[in-house]
């Protein structure tokens, strides 16, 4: 019997700040601030069940009945954590690109704005887990570094260079 092959999609939900939100000004002060803002915990209304419903609805809206029939039925959630906003979706091998595009096109789940991005696709769940472990470790490493002074030093260096430009001669070719 020929094997039915699956694809496991590792995704996470990120929350970039909008112009009218509180975190907008403090977002770019340091790396840790940016990361913490992006990777917030998801509201309790987002659960595996509601995620599946939202994905199926998006596929139905964008790909019609055909898409819903082929891709929508074989989608299932293997893991989803509210605290870290990451999850693993399983789908058939032939329709994984449909599912990824549906994830991208989703903008609301149960009246909360979401932004979903696909991080890794793999044929086995073990490799997805391994990739997520590697990624989490990298995130933890970035957070523990103290990078709050980088922005100021960059800005000051730009200011000093701007001062040098005042003595530049005019280009004659531009005339």
């Amino acid at each position, binding site marked *: 019997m020929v094997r039915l092959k699956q694809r496991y999609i590792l995704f996470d939900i990120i929350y970039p700040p909008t112009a009218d939100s509180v975190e907008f000004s403090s977002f770019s002060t340091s790396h840790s601030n940016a990361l913490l803002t992006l990777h917030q915990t998801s509201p309790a209304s987002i659960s595996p069940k509601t995620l599946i419903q939202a994905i199926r609805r998006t596929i139905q809206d964008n790909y019609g009945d055909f898409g819903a029939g082929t891709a929508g039925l074989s989608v299932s959630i293997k893991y989803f954590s509210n605290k870290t906003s990451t999850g693993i979706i399983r789908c058939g091998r032939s329709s994984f690109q449909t599912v990824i595009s549906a994830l991208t096109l989703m903008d609301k789940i149960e009246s909360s704005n979401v932004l979903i991005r696909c991080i890794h696709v793999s044929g086995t769940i073990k490799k997805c*887990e391994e990739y997520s472990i590697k990624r989490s470790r990298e995130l933890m490493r970035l957070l523990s570094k103290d990078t709050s002074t980088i922005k100021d030093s960059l800005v000051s260096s730009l200011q000093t260079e701007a001062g040098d430009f005042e003595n530049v001669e005019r280009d004659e070719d531009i005339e």
Partner: protein
Amino acid sequence: MPPKGNINAKKAKLYNSRTIRTQLSDPSFTEKEKLNIADFLRAREFEISSFERSQLNTKYASSTRVFQNLPRTMRRRTASHNVKRIPSRLRSRALREMQNSTNGVPPKKKRSRGRQIYELQVRRKLLKCSSLLKKVGGLPNDKVYGNSNIRSKIQELTKQIKELESSDKERKPLNNEVGSYDNTGINAYASRPRGNIKYYKRQKENVWLPTHIWHAKRFHLIKQHGYQIPQSPTQKCFKSMNRQNKKGAVIFDTSYYDTIIVEIKGEEEYKSLLLNITKYKKRLPDSFLNGTKTYNNWIYLGDETNKVGKAMIYSNLSINKILVRVYPSLFLSVFEYLKSKVQNYFSESNIYDCRYSLGSIDLCGPQAIPAISKVLHIVKDQNPASLKVWKFLASSNDSGIVPVGTTIAFEIWDPRLWKKPTRVPPPQMNTEFTINDLVVSLNEGNCDGINKTSIEHLLSSEGRTASYKDQLSIKAISKEFNKVSPLTNSIQHKEVAPSRIPVLVSKIGQNKWTIIVPWYWVLPIWISAVHVRQVLPGGLKQLHQFNFESLNPTFPHDFPFLADGWFANEALGKLNEAKYSKLKKSSVNTARPDFEDPDLFSPFNCDWTAIRNFVFLRKLSKKSVEDLAKNEPTYVRHIEETVHRELNSLHDIKQQSKEISNIYTGTTPLPIPIALYNKNIEFHAAFVAGSYEIENLVAVANKQLPVIQIAIELVNKGTISDGARLYFAGTGAEPIPPKLDHFYTAGFATSGAYNLSEGHATAIGLIRADVKLQSNHNFLFIRNIGKTTFHLAKFHEI
């Protein structure tokens, strides 16, 4: 009915293993919130640990035995019921597993009675007698090995033991307790080694290598050329060997290479013999004469045209000895030739057959010398030059800096005196002599890494016998190790085992080193060497693989113009034909291009006879290829029982080529249809220029088609298999695919496969030598046997 509880428990276990736990968030927080750093880190840690736990759960959900935790290369087939085959650290778990299961315990052995017990006891007594004879210092004589029954063998042995016990020490044939002796033939063939009495019967037709038993447990062996040679490890190793050849070292037991030692006391005759058999015509290089470089090239028997194969020749004028090391199938012709030469010399000269007294170990890969240096411990109170050279070589990872032919000789202690491989101390940081200086001096040939005493001992029968003096058995060595504390790595060699082993190390190829040692020292060195982590043992197939991946031809497959290669090709054809004839008629497809007419152009191997016939018959017909293609086939005329055929068309030529072998009626055997192109031979030069002549049909059968050896690489995707047909690509600006007709075949690919080092399919093959006449670019078309597609490839001459 099987108990249902078990199945449910298993299913539940499998199901539970697949769920991944998530960290529960506080139910009071229903909105998204930004975490602080500590909480974020904790959340990520929990996620990581839950992923890892789920992976472990799925692994252990299905039942595994303890030996399945071992890597593939350490598993043994009988480990499931024989606990001793599992490494000691897992043994207690395995025992517990076996106690619980009913199938794990092996069945009780039946006790033998009556006649069987008598036979077993008598066999045991024979072995005891032979080991007692060894201890007393003797070797079993021919009567023991003859066709007598066991009782008479035991009587013979006890008689010998009585004789030896009363004689004094100097007259004993053995000077050790393990049975090592020097088996050299002086001016005659050496007698076959008989080995242990226990295994004598199996060695009657094929000689066992010194490391045979080690290989028998781990390798597939093949009986060839009178030896049993390790062919390939039992596990799959194609990719791992390729990786090992790029980064580590691969070790081979090549004691099947036959060695001949020629001793000539007169200097003129010495040099003339060397000039005769090597490629040098007028002057021999000094480094070759004084033994600092070996010669690794073609060996000529007689005149320049009689190349038989590639060999390693080591010569040392100061001790008047030449060592010739050849592939076993060439041994007879080389030995007879050298013997005939040596007997006609005026000065005192001898020839020694050292097939069974000198063994060798080959090493491939960049880490070859660093790995083997961990095992060979040099005797320090000898010339410091060889030690210095050795230290430099052992510390560098790049063996490409050393020129091919570099030779070092020294004496080493018994390698079994060290428990673990130990690194050579690096060369002293000396600003006067660095590794660059060493490379320069090696390339110029004035570096002296040879220790004269060790070469003398290695190349003389007395020296080898002296190295076997008081050789320790494994039991004796472990006794010595028991005397000292269990943490020590080595035993004081000078007191315990003062035997010094003469060793010759030489670089014989781009990445290949060889180590020549006396026969009975090969096994101790081998056992220590395979314990080094960087080495993997290999066999004949791996040698072929390594040569192929660096686009070098392998003897004998890729040399069909030599006798050995020709026989290998013929044997392969017969084998494939036998396999094909066993197929059912319904599964045979004769509509394929090569299988329509197997008599005309054999689809089972490289049919060089047919190509030679086509080329020369076309010349005989005095028509161009275009004319022949245009004409209609003519009828055959029968004149007085001979069949006379006019060569007017391609069809005539093909039919005539089938009958060529019947025309020749002489008594001397026909020569091989192809010969390697040599510009000094008149016929070859005329062939390449296009001005050669063929007089009649007998000439067609007698002449040899000149061929050149090429390495082929595919341009686009595709595969090449052995025996693929090669076609020229036309004389235009662009390569034109040829017509699918056997007449246009230019040559064959003798070895073709996917090349892991290159990343695409490559091949080694032979084509007609008049390449320049037939096409003006270095492209070829390749067609595999039985297929119709042509693949474009480029080639270059080797």
